[in-house]
Each structure stands twice: as structure tokens, then as C-alpha cells.
């Protein structure tokens, strides 16, 4: 029931955001009805196994997002250099299984997502205690192996507990 209510309110807010209609009764009723329908279907889908909710530290997530954004910009510049100047900046594709230190599935997924979102590294397979990474360059893989991203995701996760 709690999940249903949260989903319903979020969907209403999202509908208002996308439509921009605030003062047309008929359309607002349609929006509320469709939110209700989707929330009902959604809560039936999740039904027997409701997701655990995590207390989220907005501050930590925001700090991590900024750090990740800077990493993405740096990685983009590196990959673009390797695209346009292949002689000066050759590629050296490589793969490795790297350990991951997160406990919850959400945090593991967040770490794998961060790896893939950064150009130059792609997470290919995620298991309980490691992640298989394909990297465009040896340097990129080594930077990931140092584990700063892993530590940062884990510290965001620890803030939750």
C-alpha cells in the first residue's frame, strides 16, 4: 500500500511536469486516472516482493554525481583524442575481473552503471563479488583497478546504513 501511494504521487507529479496543464479539470482527471491505473499495475507487478527502501543521503549522492561528472568529462576527452589522433594516442583494448566491495544489489548496479557510463570502460558481467570490465586502454583499466570509484560508491552505500 505504501509503495502504491508513493508510486501514485510520483506519477502525478511526473504527469504534471510533462503535460504542463494545471487548470483544465478534464485533463487533470485523465492524468489522475492514468496515474492511478499505472500505480495499480505497478504495485501488482511488484506485489509479493516489495523492494526494500533505503534511506538516501542526498548530500552523498550529489557529491558522488559531481565527482562522476568530472570523471566522465575527462574520459570523454581521452577517448576523443584516441579517435582523432590514433598514432599519438593508440588504443590497447583489454579485459579484467575487478573485485567490488558493495554489499547491496542497488549499490553494485550503481557501480557497474558508473563504469559503463564512463567512456572507455564497459562493465560486461556483474557477479556477487566481482565485475568483468572491458576497457579501451590499459591506462583506463589501471585507473579503475586503483579502486577510487569502487570506494566512493561503497562510501555512499555506507552512508545509508
Amino acid at each position, binding site marked *: 500500500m505504501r509503495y502504491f501511494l508513493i508510486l501514485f504521487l510520483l506519477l502525478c507529479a511526473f504527469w504534471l*511536469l*510533462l503535460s*504542463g496543464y494545471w487548470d483544465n479539470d478534464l485533463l487533470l482527471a485523465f492524468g489522475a486516472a492514468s496515474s492511478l491505473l499505472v500505480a495499480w499495475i505497478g504495485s501488482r507487478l511488484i506485489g509479493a516482493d516489495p523492494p526494500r527502501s533505503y534511506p538516501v543521503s542526498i548530500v552523498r549522492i550529489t557529491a558522488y554525481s559531481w565527482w562522476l561528472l568530472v570523471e*566522465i*568529462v575527462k574520459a*570523454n576527452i581521452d*577517448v*576523443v583524442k*584516441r*579517435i*582523432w589522433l*590514433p598514432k599519438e594516442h593508440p*588504443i*590497447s*583494448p*583489454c*579485459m579484467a575481473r575487478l573485485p567490488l566491495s558493495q554489499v547491496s544489489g542497488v549499490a553494485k548496479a550503481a557501480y*557497474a*552503471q558508473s563504469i*559503463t*557510463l*564512463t*567512456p*572507455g*570502460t*564497459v*562493465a*560486461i*558481467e556483474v557477479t556477487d563479488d566481482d565485475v568483468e570490465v*572491458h576497457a*579501451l586502454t*590499459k591506462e583506463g583499466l589501471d585507473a579503475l583497478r586503483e579502486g577510487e570509484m569502487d570506494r566512493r560508491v561503497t562510501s555512499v552505500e555506507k552512508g545509508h546504513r
Partner: protein
Amino acid sequence: MALLLDLLSFAMLLGGVFLGISGAVGVIRFPDFYTRIHAAGVTDTLSAGLILGGLMLQAGLTLVTLKLAFILMFLWITSPVASHALARAAMHSGWHPRLSD
């Protein structure tokens, strides 16, 4: 001030277009499927971010900007999922990457 915003937005749009073209060139130039994913990643992340950011500056403080921000957020959440699914599917179908050593 308006001129400054316009110039910044033009610079972001141009940068985004350049990165998009770079991604396309990289997809052609890189040797195999797995390395090409990395080139496409440039288009997915910073190119899309700069273009949408430039459009946000053009739209100003309106509902349109909020919608663009949501588009960017969803794009940055979904595109790594797609890349990961593609790479994983390729690996599971027995297509091994060419490695440098």
C-alpha cells in the same frame, strides 16, 4: 547577459555536435564491436549532455528546461544499461574481443 548566454549555448551546442561526430568516426575507426561501444559512449554521455545543456540555456527558466533536464537524466540512466546489455549479449554469444596482447 543575453548575449553571454547565447554565446555559451552556441559553444555547448557546437561542442556537442563535434563530440557526436567524433563518436560516429570512432565507431567506424575502431577495430571491433567492444571498442566501438566505447566510441558510442562519447555520443551517449557528453555529446548529449552538451546539446541538451545548450538547449536548456536557450529555453531559459521554463518548463521546457525542466523537461530537458529529465530527458538528460533518463538518457544517462538508460544508455549504460543498453551498452551493458549489448556487450553482455555479445560475450554470451561467444564473440570474444580482440585484445592488445
